[in-house]
């Protein structure tokens, strides 16, 4: 058996064995193994893809949430601002109204006081006038108890009238 001369027997057995081995392994080993590997790779890829998708959605949801939160916060701020404005306005209005009302009341009071005062003065005037007349009557009555005095008085009065 020479080292570099191929033996027909070995060529025959190698070829036959290799072809049979190829057939057997291809059918019963390589096909199922490669299929399993491929299926697994496909499922891993799918899983990764869906995980990515989920992450994306999550991101989107998160940003949506943030948007909503931001909107809500802005709305809240707006409402609070409005409320503050309204309350301030209300307070201001109330104040203004109160002041106006107060002023009005004071005015009325002053008017009334004025009226009362006027009435009182009038009354007083009347009283004073009445008292003056009474005094004058008493004085006159006393004065006029004698005829001389009456005449003097009338004369005096007449003088006064002239002057007027």
């Amino acid at each position, binding site marked *: *058996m020479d080292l570099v001369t191929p*033996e027909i027997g*070995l060529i025959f057995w190698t070829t036959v*064995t290799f072809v049979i081995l*190829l057939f057997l*392994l291809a059918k019963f080993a390589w096909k199922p193994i490669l299929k399993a590997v491929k299926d697994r790779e496909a499922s891993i890829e799918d899983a990764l893809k869906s995980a990515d998708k989920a992450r994306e959605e999550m991101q989107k949801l998160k940003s949506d949430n943030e948007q909503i939160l931001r909107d809500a916060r802005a709305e809240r701020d707006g409402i609070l601002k409005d409320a503050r404005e309204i309350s301030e306005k209300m307070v201001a209005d109330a104040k203004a109204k109160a002041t106006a009302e107060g002023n009005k009341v004071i005015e009325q009071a002053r008017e009334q006081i004025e009226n009362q005062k006027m009435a009182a003065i009038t009354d007083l005037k009347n009283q004073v006038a009445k008292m003056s007349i009474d005094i004058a009557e008493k004085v006159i009555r006393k004065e006029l108890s004698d005829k001389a005095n009456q005449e003097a008085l009338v004369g005096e009065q007449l003088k006064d009238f002239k002057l007027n």
Partner: protein
Amino acid sequence: MLLLGFSSNLQAQDENGHNHDEHATEEAHMDDSPLSDHAEGIEEAQAEDEAYDPTPVVMHHIKDSHGFHVVGDLSVSLPVILWTDNGLVTFMSSAFHHDVEGHHIVEASGMRFVNVHEDIYQLNDGAEAVEFDADHHPVNASKPLDFSITKNVFTLLLASLILCLIFMTVASKYKKGHSVPKGLASFMEPLVVFVRDDIAEPNIGKKYERYMPLLLTMFFLIWILNLIGLVPFFPGSANMSGNIAFTMSLAVITLLVTNFSGNKGYWKHILLPPVPKALWIIMIPVEIIGILTKPFALMIRLFANITAGHIIVLSLISLIFIFKTPAMGAVSVPFALFISVLELLVAALQAYIFTMLTALFIGTAVAEDHH
């Protein structure tokens, strides 16, 4: 893997050493076989001044044989299958009683056969003993077609059986619905995926799936045969992947697959090369030779690499007998160990290269035309 290499290698040393001792003593008593090259080599070793010639022992180990020498006188007998002019003849190799010098004549189906250095000759009618010419070729015998289950064929069948067992077990694990590889499958799957992702797909391209079974079978068969060849004792030690017939058969398969998958662009490149027409007279023969040289290189590469590894290990061990001192073992054994570990790498590397180049050749044959 590395540990296995170490232990098997150490056993290799023991085994080889033992074998040589056995041979030496055996041959020393067999002074009645002066024609034997082998015996002459050993006799020379026995002689005081003559140098020991390791060539016959090394050549015996790297070539094929009809029996499987285990240890000492113990050997495994293998069937001899011959296709003669008178039809098929079979008998067990033990019928030769370890004779490789053509002395022991086996009679089967009325024909006489002798074993001359593992070549089986059929004696011509009437011849009683084989006669040799000056070049030690038998003159009165013819060579029938030898389809024996030799040591190498036995190893090939063993390797095929191991591959079937391993990968059918792996495949059955997937069939049971385990989508995640466990045990053997988790060890084998990366190798299968390696062949797919690093050999088939980059070299062949989109159509790689069709060629996966071929490439996987080639890769794992070559690898396991390389590894079995490194095991120094029965049932290993056969130099199957370093046998030219084996590498030639695989190379021819590569040649056939490549050329039968060749598309229009591939043949156009060979028969109508894209060079000025005046150069066609040179280019076309070159391209046609190129079809053959590529697989031829594959054949030689694998044969030479694996055979060289075996020769180096055996030669290093032979140093002990050349220097005739066991002390030489202190040098030989570490070196042989180193080479054996290196051969473990080479075993995988050569399987990879053979498969990768096959994929590359197929890739050029099925490539889409760029012109």
